[in-house]
């Protein structure tokens, strides 16, 4: 069957706080699924529930169609990087992978392979107590890859990495997805998933906000946005506003027009005799799209009225 993660109506409460509140989504094979939300939105808890570390109060999480706890050799089904610093400082890097390998009947050769793959071969005999954050992260990814699993989960994989490391993880994630694996990558910064994720699951306060492909999301966020570059910015603004557009000044000579199609903008400006050097469809960044999505869903944002999402759900 196709490698996948399925989460159905998952709910988890810790004492007084509801960490995950009726979450459902699916992570499909061959795609990188971004899992975004502000800190405390329930991303890590969801991953812990998928991995059977915590027990859900309601709902279920299935990996390749089965609950994680029922897997006989789980590392060959799912590789997970949750907390890269979860290492015994006195143990050597290679030995950390070795005990994981033994627990799932994986051979020693595979340990050397993954160490090579993440670029830690030269540090394999070193105790992890002296590892930098980046090396810990690489070792964690090596552990996730150990069983050559069809499903991978990375929780905030680029935290604390230098630009080289971030580029490396992006490349690795893309190539793993290209091999047909199902990959779930969480982040609290949307920008990190730009160019990486194919699909997006956005959560806020433990609830699903969006479950959509990145292409659709960007298209939705970019819809009806036209960017005009003109020396006569003030005049252009007046004309377009009178025609019913919403305008945002984006630079000394740039205006973003919302609410009017591009050809209509072009016609209006030409009609008014306003010269413009460039007129193009505005492409929203993933960050902007995400901000639109999560506005009001951020738990610790200053209170400026009723949260938009709550209102829209009702």
């Amino acid at each position, binding site marked *: 069957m196709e490698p996948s993660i399925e989460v159905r109506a998952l709910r988890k409460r810790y004492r007084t706080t509801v960490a995950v509140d009726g979450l459902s989504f699916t992570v499909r094979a061959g795609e990188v699924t971004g899992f975004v939300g502000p800190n405390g939105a329930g991303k890590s808890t969801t991953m812990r529930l998928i991995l059977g570390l915590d027990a859900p109060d309601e709902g279920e999480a299935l990996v390749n169609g089965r609950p994680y706890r029922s897997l006989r050799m789980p590392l060959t089904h799912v590789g997970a990087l949750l*907390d890269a610093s979860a290492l015994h400082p006195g143990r050597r890097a290679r030995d950390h992978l070795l005990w994981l390998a033994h*627990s799932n009947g994986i051979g020693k050769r595979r340990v050397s392979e993954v160490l090579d793959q993440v670029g830690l071969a030269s540090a394999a005999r070193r105790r992890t107590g002296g590892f930098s954050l980046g090396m810990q992260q690489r070792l964690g990814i090596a552990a996730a890859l150990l069983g050559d699993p069809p499903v991978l989960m990375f929780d905030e994989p680029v935290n604390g990495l230098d630009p080289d490391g971030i580029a490396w993880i992006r490349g690795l994630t893309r190539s793993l997805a290209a091999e047909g694996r199902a990959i779930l990558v969480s982040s609290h910064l949307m920008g990190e998933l730009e160019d990486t994720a194919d699909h997006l699951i956005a959560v806020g306060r433990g609830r699903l906000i969006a479950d959509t492909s990145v292409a659709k999301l960007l298209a939705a966020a970019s819809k009806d946005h036209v960017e005009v570059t003109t020396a006569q910015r003030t005049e252009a603004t007046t004309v377009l506003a009178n025609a019913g557009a919403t305008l945002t000044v984006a630079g000394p000579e740039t205006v973003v027009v919302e609410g009017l199609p591009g050809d209509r903008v072009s016609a209006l400006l030409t009609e008014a005799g306003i010269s413009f050097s460039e007129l193009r469809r505005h492409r929203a960044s993933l960050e902007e799209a995400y901000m639109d999505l999560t506005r009001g869903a951020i738990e610790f944002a200053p209170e400026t009225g009723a949260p938009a999402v709550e209102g829209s759900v009702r």
Partner: protein
Amino acid sequence: MTAPRPLRAIRAEWTKLRTLPSTGWLMLLAILGTVGLALAITGSLDYTHCDSPCTVDTTKLSLAGVRLGQVGIVVLAVLAVTAEYSTRTIQPTLIAVPHRFLVVLGKLGVLAMLGATTGVLAVAGSLAAGRTMLPGNGFTAAHGFPALSLADDLTRRAAIGTVLYIGLVTLLGAGLGLLLRDTAGAVTAALALLYGSPVVATFVNDPTWQHRIHRFSLMDAGLTIQATRNLAAEHIGPWAGLGVLSLYAAAAVIAGLIVFQLRDTH
């Protein structure tokens, strides 16, 4: 192709412990502590200072070093569990082996094995110390003290019992670790359980109470099996004493297991 799950769990836990330098050091500490004290005690015994008839239990005294040496193996057992929480490696452990009973089984299996190995070496060293030191101090066959030998039924029982004792306190330590999850708390609890009651017994002068405390304190009851002379004076039978210790160890392990199964892994 692959081994059954319990064996894989044991192998993983063995690799985990084997690859930590502290494991070897703590085992060495346990063995050297036991044998060192055995040397000190048997070296300071003197037949000419003994009552007539001399009723010194040379086997028991030679093996008395475990009272001190056990600290090493108990701490090893506690750390084997609680370090998983303090370093958070419990997370990869449970991701690799989601079946929690298997994790506990693997850990206890390996610890019992390490405990028994430590016990065998410590007991062998202690008996060798006794054999070396005692004849020079007048405890000779001519005085009714043949050299300590496993051919002697009671000495053999004491030796086997001491190995079992060390294995059981190892399991006790692991059980307390599972139950409390906190290194400081579990180490303190284990040492207090082991050493607290004998100390309290010296404060108490009522023989009935002393009898009760000796019967039901882990260390005194568990080590009664070391006695080879004047068995009637002991507070509990040798195997019953080990039984008392097993009950404590089992209680700690079962309680730890239940907590481990029910609680989330934070």
